[in-house]
């Protein structure tokens, strides 16, 4: 036994740096590099530079991320870090090699082909409301970097012209009238600034249009439009601007019955009646965005069941708007996209099963494609999209449209096929859990049942169970050839629910993720994060607006909680169907009946413990000292198997681990002295077991922490302003033992039962050994790998936001028993201990994400797999990343390098050899028997 652990320790010592192997990278892991749901007004196809043959798809997402996607395969070309909010705008000028973005107060120009930052500037005390590119000056296109017009609001209102080369402000027009800025629009000769003018006496707002000189920024003219009856807020305006020859301003009345259109620069307002056959839910106006395109636009009417559209032409000479033709209403939801080719304008109608292209000039259909469905888009309809059309003669030969679908998938429809779909809804993942499949759980349940019976009935029970299992035998035998072939030839990535349930190695575990928009989806981590099912939680709770749903996994189902939900929802984990609360029984309770259940929660900086679940009177509470406030607490995971209750030393003595399931670590900070403290409590009694304080800590930064087995670790940022001897980030690791002496079980001795509420004699406090390390980067989140039995050494998985990566630190590196100031003795070496070094450099081999860039990771969850050596890791937040780690190497499974074909060929060759040699040997043996010795 001791030898075995010594050998294991030796293995751990020899290989402290586990790495992602080259043949495993991109096979065992997956990464969704997400942007978030793209915004309609800032999504467009654009050539990254003037001479480019292919265009890229640019977008700003709802979380303020700017990105470019290759339209051919949906791969991300580049993206920026997420912005502070979704108030983001993105524009690109014609034949420019930059795109210009405005996110909150930050204006930036990005190199269109690779996303390098060209320049950026900040607005003082203001937020960019709108952004336009000045395409032409005095009717002449410039070939230089085109300037941008920024509308500034939320503070000092006004319009700024920003130099396209450097980002410097050329001129500023300040609006002191107190109007609410709405949008800017530019025509070849004038810049129009549109604002909402609220009259003093209340009521609706007037639209005020101010025209500015593009060269000086001086006010040329100003007029108001009588829109008091219809427009209250900015949301009531349908459309304003577009860089067309004739920018229009459109709004509607409350009932969506009358559409009012004004050509910016004129005072006339044309009114059109919306189709009256069905009540219109919303009206969307689509206009081309190019200066030299025809002044045509399309108005889309969305009703509860279908949609229709009308195309309008603007007569520049008469300054009049007239309806050209109407597109027939269609049942089902759809959307329109505009595209231009030279001056011609084309409208693409995208529905879930059809793409139609019409010209803005006449209503004849130029091209129509029936779209082949894709499982990713099943049941979803397009919400908005952009498209590119290739027109030859009088028919459209090809069309591609990037559309956001109602299920959050951003898909590209190329003619009649779905070229790719990006699950952009996952960018808003706020909670994820590992699913416990009902099947495996039921086996565990049966075994438990057998455990409690006497021998004979348990035996009968087991025989019956095995007989019942025989019904699966024919199917299993039928599948056998396929499985053998599959394992020899290499498996395909596709997996079915069946496979997930009959997964030998347990790699195909499902994760259920909930997004902030109330979408729930199940991902198969074993087959590259394939989305098994995805549902909208609103179908179960139509009134709820989900803010931050949290998930909890139970046997075969998950529970969804949200502050907007009156009571929890229960969803079947394999099918995504809702379960009633009666079906969803078997909630988690402590395993043994004789255990007293105590619950605790953090409220107003105090940790309070309650007897049972229902009581309101706390039985204990823990308040940090005066001036400190508890910010977070970390409990030992509910499932935290421990293989050995002691640590075997080099001289084969034992240090007994302090294994208390009720440990809770409370992190508290105090302004005075920039102090951060951690308190280790026994949460059954509220007793303080250990405390540590650190001074000179930047208390505004998070203090991530984790607790597992008999050790805990936390990390903090040192304050840069205080007079510390060191700066940077620290990682503290502590181990708890029952006694400082080897072979000693502390005050409790050998007693099998322990209680901290009613302690026998002296309450046992753990012996704590701590070491702190300097680390090169801030850690935002940490967790520990989980394996089935807990035999495999654990690995600390930390998220590094500044280098966009996830690192697995081997446990041996952060062992607090590392000898300080001297080399390890032979006995310590046999334990795997090496000399203490104050700095931990994150070895590049520890990075689990290798080439991937993981942005916005909020949380990492780990789970056991079917193999003891391997732990599954799933990271979520903005990006989704999944992999599996083997901290002590994959000692129980053949590696990818193992050549099964070669092995089979060797066996076959040996068999053939035996067939040939056997008669020879037999003859020789017989001859030996019969030959007379000479």
């Amino acid at each position, binding site marked *: *036994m*001791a*030898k075995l*652990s*010594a050998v294991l320790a030796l293995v751990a010592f020899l290989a402290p740096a586990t790495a992602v192997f080259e043949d495993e990278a991109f096979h065992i892991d997956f990464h969704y590099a997400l942007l978030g749901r793209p915004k309609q007004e800032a999504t467009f196809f654009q050539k990254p530079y003037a001479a480019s043959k292919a265009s890229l798809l640019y977008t700003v997402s709802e979380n303020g991320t700017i990105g470019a996607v290759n339209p051919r395969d949906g791969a991300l070309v580049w993206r920026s870090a997420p912005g502070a909010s979704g108030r983001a705008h993105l524009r690109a000028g014609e034949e420019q090699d930059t795109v210009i973005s405005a996110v909150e107060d930050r204006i930036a120009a990005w190199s269109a082909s690779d996303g390098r930052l060209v320049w950026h500037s900040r607005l003082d005390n203001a937020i960019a409301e709108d952004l336009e590119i000045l395409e032409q000056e005095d009717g002449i296109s410039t070939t230089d970097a085109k300037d941008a017009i920024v509308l500034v609001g939320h503070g000092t209102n006004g319009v700024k012209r920003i130099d396209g080369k450097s980002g410097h402000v050329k001129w500023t027009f300040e609006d002191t009238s107190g109007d609410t800025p709405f949008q800017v629009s530019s025509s070849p000769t004038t810049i129009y600034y549109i604002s909402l003018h609220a009259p003093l006496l209340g009521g609706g707002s007037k639209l005020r249009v101010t025209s500015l000189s593009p060269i000086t920024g001086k006010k040329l003219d100003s007029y108001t439009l009588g829109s008091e009856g219809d427009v209250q807020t900015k949301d009531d305006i349908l459309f304003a601007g577009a860089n067309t020859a004739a920018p229009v301003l459109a709004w509607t009345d409350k009932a969506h019955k009358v559409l009012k259109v004004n050509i910016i620069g004129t005072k006339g307002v044309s009114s059109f009646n919306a189709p009256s056959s069905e009540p219109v839910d919303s009206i969307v106006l689509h206009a081309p965005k190019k200066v030299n395109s025809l002044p045509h636009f399309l108005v889309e009417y969305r009703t509860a069941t279908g949609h229709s559209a009308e195309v309008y032409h603007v007569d520049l000479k008469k300054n009049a708007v007239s309806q050209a033709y109407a597109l027939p209403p269609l049942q089902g939801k759809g959307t329109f996209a505009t595209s231009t080719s030279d001056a011609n304008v084309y409208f693409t109608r995208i529905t879930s099963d059809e793409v139609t292209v019409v010209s803005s000039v006449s209503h004849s259909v130029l091209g129509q494609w029936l779209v082949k469905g894709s499982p990713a888009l099943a049941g979803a309809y397009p919400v908005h999209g952009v498209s590119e059309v290739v027109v030859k003669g009088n028919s459209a030969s090809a069309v591609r449209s990037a559309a956001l679908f109602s299920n959050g998938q951003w898909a590209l429809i190329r003619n009649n096929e779905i070229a790719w779909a990006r699950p952009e809804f996952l960018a808003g993942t706020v909670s994820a859990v590992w699913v416990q499949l009902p099947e495996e759980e039921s086996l565990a349940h049966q075994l438990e049942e057998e455990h409690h019976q006497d021998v004979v009935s348990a035996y009968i029970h087991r025989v019956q169970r095995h007989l019942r299992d025989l019904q699966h035998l024919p199917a299993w035998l039928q599948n056998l050839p396929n499985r053998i072939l599959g394992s020899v030839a290499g498996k395909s990535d596709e997996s079915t629910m069946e496979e997930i349930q009959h997964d030998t190695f347990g790699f195909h575990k499902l994760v259920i993720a909930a997004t902030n928009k109330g979408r729930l989806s199940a991902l198969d981590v074993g087959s590259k994060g394939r989305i098994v099912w995805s549902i909208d939680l609103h179908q179960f709770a139509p009134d709820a607006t989900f803010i931050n749903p*949290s998930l*909890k996994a139970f046997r075969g189902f998950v529970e969804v909680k949200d502050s907007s939900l009156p009571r929890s929802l229960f969803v079947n984990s394999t099918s995504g169907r809702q379960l009633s609360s009666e079906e969803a029984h078997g*909630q*988690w309770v*402590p395993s*043994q009946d*004789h*255990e*007293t*259940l*105590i*619950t*605790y*929660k953090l409220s107003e900086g105090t940790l309070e*413990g*309650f007897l049972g*679940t229902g009581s309101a009177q706390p039985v204990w509470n823990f308040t940090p000292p005066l001036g400190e406030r508890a910010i977070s*607490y970390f*409990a030992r995971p*509910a499932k935290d198997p*421990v293989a*050995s*209750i*002691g640590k*075997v*030393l080099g*001289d*084969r*003595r*034992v240090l007994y681990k302090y*294994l*208390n*399931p*009720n440990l*809770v670590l409370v992190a508290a900070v105090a302004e005075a002295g920039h102090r951060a403290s951690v308190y280790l409590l*026994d*949460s*059954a*009694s509220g007793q303080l077991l250990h405390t540590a304080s650190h001074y000179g800590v930047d208390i505004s930064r998070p203090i991530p922490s984790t607790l597992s087995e008999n050790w805990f670790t936390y990390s903090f940022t040192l304050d840069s302003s205080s007079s510390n001897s060191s700066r940077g980030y620290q990682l503290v690791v502590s181990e708890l033992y029952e006694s400082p002496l*080897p*072979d000693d079980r502390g005050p*409790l001795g050998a*007693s*099998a*039962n*322990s*209680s*901290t*509420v*009613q302690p026998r004699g002296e309450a046992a406090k753990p012996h704590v050994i701590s070491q702190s390390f300097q680390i090169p980067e801030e850690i935002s989140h940490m967790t520990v790998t989980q394996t089935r039995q807990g035999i495999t050494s654990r690995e600390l998985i930390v998220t590094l936001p500044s280098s966009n990566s996830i690192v697995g630190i081997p446990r041996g590196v952060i062992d607090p028993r590392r000898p300080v100031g001297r080399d390890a003795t032979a006995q310590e070496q046999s334990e795997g201990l090496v000399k203490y070094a104050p700095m931990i450099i994150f070895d590049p081999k520890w990075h689990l994400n290798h080439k991937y860039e993981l942005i916005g990771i909020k949380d990492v969850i780990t789970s056991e797999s079917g193999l003891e050596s391997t732990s599954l890791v799933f990271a979520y937040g903005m990006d989704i990343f999944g992999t599996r780690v083997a901290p002590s190497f994959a000692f129980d499974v053949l590696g990818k390098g193992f050549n099964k074909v070669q092995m089979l060929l060797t066996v076959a060759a040996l068999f053939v050899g035996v067939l040939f040699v056997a008669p020879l040997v037999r003859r020789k043996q017989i001859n030996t028997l019969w030959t007379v010795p000479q």
Partner: protein
Amino acid sequence: MSAQTSSYPQWVIDLKEPPTTKPKITLADPPGYTASLTRKDRAASSKQSMRKQPTPEEMDTLKMKKAWEVAIAPAKQLPMSAIGMYMTGNTLQIFSIFMVFTLFKTPILAALNIQKTFASFEAPGTANRLIAVKIVYLLTNALSLGLGIWKVNAMGLLPTTRSDWLAWEAERTWSERAVPQEWL
């Protein structure tokens, strides 16, 4: 040659029908040849060379001497195997394992076969004295066994420390279980 094909050669005939009478040849025996003695000669010679048979006491002393030699033999092996054990080191290798195995096997087999080993020394006069010899034999074998045990211990294979019994020690059960409320 052809004349002899019909009849047997002379030596075959001689062989099949040995001469009944000794040929009267008075030649001296070749040097180094001892003529087989006739019964008479044998009787005469035995009478001449008859040594005095040892007495049973003498026989017993002899047997005891021999028995002691057998009993001490394992002890004589001991230094040699001790050096061998020392040289093989304390690592788990196939050679050291084989050596340790033989170290264990030999004394145990010897103890099992003790009656057979000393059967030839068994006599009415030695029966009592042999007990001491057997005990010494067992002791010397035990010495060799002890060497084996020392070696196994040095290799860390004997469960003598706390860590060897760690797997049988159970984690404490706790009378209380506390969980955060958000888990419920």
